């Protein structure tokens, strides 16, 4: 299941700074690299101060041999 995302943004989580938002424009994503796909709750999103969210990146699902 390949997908095309418009007006997409990449979120980079780190322990040093808050969440960084990178503009990623239009993306074509190959289905076999997808893990989770979901609808975002915008109200909940507004209530979160992303500058204060500090977290490690999620560990990879796919190994290098994938």
């Amino acid at each position: 299941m390949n997908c095309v995302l418009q007006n997409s943004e990449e979120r980079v989580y780190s322990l040093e700074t808050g969440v960084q938002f990178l503009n990623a424009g239009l993306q074509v994503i190959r289905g076999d690299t997808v893990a989770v796909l979901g609808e975002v709750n915008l109200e909940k999103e507004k209530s979160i101060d992303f500058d204060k969210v500090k977290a490690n990146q999620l560990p990879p699902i796919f190994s290098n041999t994938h």
Partner: protein
Amino acid sequence: MQSQFFQTYFRGLIERCVSVTIELKNGLQIQGQITYVDDNLNFNLVDPEVSDPVKQPQLITLKNSFIRGSTVKYVHIPQEELQEEVLISACKNEVKKQKQ
């Protein structure tokens, strides 16, 4: 030809509105009610909640989520909803079928 048994089993969980925890291959645990499952054991969950929202806040704002079957390591099912006998007898039937 892959067995249809697990799909049927998960359909039963959907009908009984059982809440399960799905553990991905990277260790991320997502809890929620299954609403859909297909041949590839892709899942749809409503109101997904991650087990550790402080350490892993990436998915906390999701209303629902589609989880690709190939990324799933475990599905944790509550003990009282497990139906162990059903699973055991179905596995025995599978083995019999394969021997034939």
